């Protein structure tokens, strides 16, 4: 991951292109490239970086002149806050809609839910974000347009980020519930005279949650990725925006550190999801 991002970034240009002033001479540009070690072969540059990174030293940002890790640590809480709230919204809104759509399959409610899922997945996040700003921030004046600070500042970016996930989770939950509801043990439960509420919530839902939990684990990675756009639109001070700026500035150490840390978070979450399988399904044993 780190190697690929390094190569892609390296091929797209040189940080000195951004750092130098327009009035610099060719000699001054060459001197800066030498001072920054950018005149070395790129494999040597990567080897030097990787050698430091395995010891926990991600290097110093070329633009900020501060340790890359510190810059990420400053902004990580904002991104996690946004992604976690979006994840929470995507679960609590998708769960009832998905379950009801499955239980009332073919009804007007089901059709409405699926239209929402289709539209929610089709809407580009940048367009949705701007629409939410215009409606709730400008026309109605109910919510702040940009920035971070209060609970209200979180509402629009979290909703923009969550919409795609809500739509996708709704479809997954509906589909998973439909599969489970066809099983014989559901028929048996109904034959035993259990109420529909108990059949759906205690017998069907738990089993239907296994694919959903898998999706939710992956979803968090998607939310971290989506934060890049949402943070830019809403001027949210997170690592997504930091990464965008770092890519534009060809700030190699900062991009590398951001990619590595984001990948670590993603892998850790998937590990946690794997652990959760055993909780949801007793047939799955870790040993």
């Amino acid at each position: 991951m780190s190697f690929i991002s390094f190569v892609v970034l390296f091929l797209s240009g040189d940080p000195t292109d951004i750092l130098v002033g327009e009035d610099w001479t060719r000699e001054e540009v060459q001197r800066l490239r030498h001072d920054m070690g950018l005149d070395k072969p790129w494999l040597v540059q990567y080897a030097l970086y990787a050698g430091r990174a395995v010891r926990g030293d991600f290097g110093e940002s070329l633009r900020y002149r501060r340790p890359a890790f510190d810059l990420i640590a400053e902004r990580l809480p904002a991104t996690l806050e946004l992604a976690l709230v979006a994840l929470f919204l995507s679960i609590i809104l998708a769960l009832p809609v998905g379950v009801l759509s499955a239980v009332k399959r073919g009804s007007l409610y089901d059709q409405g839910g699926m239209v929402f899922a289709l539209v929610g997945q089709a809407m580009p996040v940048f367009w949705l974000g701007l629409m939410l700003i215009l409606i709730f921030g400008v026309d109605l004046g109910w919510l702040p347009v940009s920035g971070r600070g209060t609970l209200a500042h979180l509402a629009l970016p979290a909703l923009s980020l969550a919409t795609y996930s809500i739509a996708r989770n709704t479809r997954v939950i509906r589909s998973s519930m439909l599969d489970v509801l066809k099983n014989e043990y559901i028929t048996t439960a109904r034959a035993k005279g259990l109420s529909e509420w108990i059949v759906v919530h205690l017998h069907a839902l738990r089993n239907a949650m296994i694919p959903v939990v898998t999706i939710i684990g992956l979803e968090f990675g998607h939310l971290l990725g989506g934060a890049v756009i949402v943070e830019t639109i809403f001027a949210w001070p997170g690592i997504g925006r930091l990464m965008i700026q770092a890519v534009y500035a060809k700030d190699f150490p900062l991009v590398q550190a951001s990619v590595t840390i984001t990948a670590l978070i993603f892998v850790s979450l998937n590990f946690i999801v794997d652990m959760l399988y055993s909780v949801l399904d007793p047939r799955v044993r870790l040993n």
Partner: protein
Amino acid sequence: MSRRRTFAALTALWAALSLTGCGKSGANRPLTILVSVEANTLDPHFATSTIEWTILMNVQEPLVARADDMRGVPALAERWEVDASQKVWTFHLRKGVKFTNGEPLDARAVRYTFERMRDKKLRTRITVPGRIALERVEEVDAHTVRLHTRTPIAIVPVWLVNAFILPPKYYAATPLKEVLSKPVGTGPYKVAEWVKDGHIRMEANGEWWKGRPKIPAVVWRPVPEASARLAELEAGGADLVTNITSDQANLIARQKKGFKIFSVQGGRRVYIGIRTDWRVFGDVRVRRALNHAVNFELIAKKFLVGHGTRMASVVLPPNANPDVKPYAYDPAKAKALLAEAGLKDADGDGVLEANGQPLRLKLDVPSARYLQGMEISEAVAADLRAVGIHVEVQPLEWSVFLSNRRKKILSPLYLHGFSSAFNEETDLGVLRPSLFANLTAWNHPLFVASYRDLRTAFGAEARKKLSYDLQALIRDEAPWIFLWNQYDFFAGSARVEWKPRADERIFVPAIQMKEAKPAT
């Protein structure tokens, strides 16, 4: 019961959200300025971008400042003179000035500042010592300091505009990591808080030697999306919005919601570079033809909402030679010049040929970099096609464009812009062959010799003559297709009155705010 509880909870949540979002548009809100990018550093020796210089000029001051009309004016130096050798500049410092941490402004502070710029361990990015060929700094007495240069440099004061003077004790004793975000100076404001990617909050410096600033507090917020910046203004969360397009400015002006549009002809000279080392572009008649082929008046009318006039040469007013006139749109003359240069359309396909090869070439355009850059370039390409030169516009990402510029592999024509230091010498300097960003390969012996003379000419009249002659030469030699000095557009709330500067910087004391009272 359960439904009622749910409804009550949702209502309470909505009320909480609404209340926490309120209050930002109140009259007591600090002056809020939305900018498009975040400052990376607030250390003047590492600053490189306009936003960084903008923030810093409100906190720190140089010996010589640039006034709103772009003239050099005394700041921390009351006056200065150069000796007969033209290599020793004496600056007389203003007395009684203090940095906001209590340190006095004196010759020691000036010496420390210039020595820090040259500190090899720090690896600073500031180019001032190099530009003025600084040899050493001499403390004459507490309030007199001399800059010794290795060679005579006539525009030393011009280069000092970004040399903000620092308090030596604070900068020497504080770790670099800290001073990068907590600048201290003598300027009208102090940085009270910097939340990275969030905002920079400034408070008025009550001890400022020019008197208390009228606006007590200022907040600078980076909002990358132009639409979001304007939405914030409409929602009442901002007073001044930077970096908007002419289209957006037009739209706001038409809305009549009480918002103001401020515009200024900026210092950025936007042009199309002609690579004179490419085939026929070495022939001056062809370059002149390219200039005559472009209908800039129509471009300005169609894409620039009537703003802007065509540049005649490379020097900005008031240093521009009034006798040098822009190229007139004259396609017939363009065709005649091309014919005179031996270009013919032998096969009748509408494209001229040189040595049997059709004149088909690309015009590289950095996307989303210059105001209406793509639209202007497409119009220029159409004008050139009309006289028989087949030009295809090639949009490039800014980073790719920069990389190609460094590698000198841009197409024979390329859209580019140079900012200005508002001085004839620096304006003319963009055509120096040694400049890495100049890909024209235009290397005229008269230009090189006269420019060298200009650098060491100290008399105003001698400088004027050299500059005027060079401007005329450049106009005739046409290494560029001359376009325009880009306008900068800003949007403001009803409570703000302001006249923007041509250097894209915002000096807060120049802003009038309706309810602003002097800071206490």
